[in-house]
């Protein structure tokens, strides 16, 4: 996947155009989908409302498994949006790859470590703030770093960064490797004419199906782990 990236500088800030366009498409797809599903909400759900409620129940379940309901309520919307955005991002690259020359404009946004690091950063930073707001600054420090014993403080400190890095890089690695292998199979198909194209077709199909599966699992894993890390900040252990 040795692609070039178009980098624009705006006000001295470097932007990766491909990454930004992909993220924008993913966000728009998620919003349009949810907006369409949530029209005409009724007490007795029908059709698409059932589907939306199934999704919400699913992400609510993830939150519920990490922390009790009264604390978890405020994170439900976050978990739902996070799951939908990551899920769509993971699958986006499987459905459309838009490239002009060597530069990819549309791909999986989560195949870039910056995207996954940003998402993990948003949620974990918020968790630290919620924890500090809930227990007060000292209570938050005690709960997050000095428990169960003050000796653990250095390990707890390091853990904050390792948690953040592992959860983000796990998602990135899974999606990126999937795209790398798809591209590799694509190169293989074109390399020796018809003799490699025919075996490449089932191979590509199998790998796409597997990537679909991986993308779904990884979205679930990301949200689950993030919620567990959040619960460590906002819950008394």
């Amino acid at each position, binding site marked *: 996947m040795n692609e070039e*990236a178009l*980098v624009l500088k705006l006000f001295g800030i*470097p932007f990766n155009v491909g990454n930004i366009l992909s993220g924008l498409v993913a966000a728009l797809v*998620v*919003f349009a989908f*949810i907006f369409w599903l949530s029209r005409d909400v009724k007490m007795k759900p029908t059709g698409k409302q059932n589907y939306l409620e199934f999704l919400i129940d699913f992400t609510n379940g993830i939150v519920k498994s990490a922390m009790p309901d009264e604390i978890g309520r405020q994170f439900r919307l976050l978990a739902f*949006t996070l799951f939908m955005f990551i899920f769509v991002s993971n699958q986006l690259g499987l459905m459309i790859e838009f490239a002009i020359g060597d530069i990819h404009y549309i791909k999986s946004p989560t195949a870039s470590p910056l995207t996954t690091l940003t998402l993990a*950063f948003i949620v974990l930073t918020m968790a630290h703030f919620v924890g500090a707001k809930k227990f007060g600054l000292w209570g938050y420090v005690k709960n997050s770093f000095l428990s169960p014993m003050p000796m653990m403080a250095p390990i707890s400190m390091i853990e904050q960064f390792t948690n953040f890095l592992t959860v983000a890089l796990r998602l990135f690695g899974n999606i990126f490797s999937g795209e790398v292998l798809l591209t590799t199979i694509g190169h293989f198909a074109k390399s020796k004419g018809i003799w490699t194209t025919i075996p490449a077709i089932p191979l590509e199909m199998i790998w796409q199906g597997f990537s679909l599966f991986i993308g779904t699992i990884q979205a679930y894993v990301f949200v689950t782990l993030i919620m567990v890390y959040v619960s460590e900040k906002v819950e008394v252990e």
Partner: protein
Amino acid sequence: MNSTFLLDAQGVQWGDFLFYLVTFLLLIAAIKHFAWDSIAGMMDKRAEKIADDIDSAERNRIKAAELAEQREAALKDSHIEASQIVDRAKKNGEEQKATILASANSEATALKERARKDIEQERQDALEGVKNDVAELSIEIASKVIQKELNASGHETLVDSYIEGLGKHNETR
């Protein structure tokens, strides 16, 4: 040069970080405004309604059981009452029968007594009548016997005096 990794020759594209920060927060806000509030509110309302329905169903069930118990008790009471009523009616009938029989008996005795008295009276009357008849008959017989004796023996003086008496009798008339 691989742009997909965090660091490359062009440095970190940290604009992406800002972009995703803003995009994700905007996405959350948009979903909250356009979808989440209505659907989550509706889900909460539904959960509340279901809980309410379950509670009210439980209350209704208890009430129904109470009512059934009351009805059962009332039914039992009414059974007892009914048998009491039947008993009372039987007793009443029994008593009535006894009084009717007694009164009929006494009436019959009275009737018999009166009849006996009447018969006695009749008999007395008949005897009286017979006595009178006997007297008349005996007088007639006696007169006939006397006439015959008169003819046979010729008691002339007696007949004469009678005739005389008859004549006097006619004169006075």
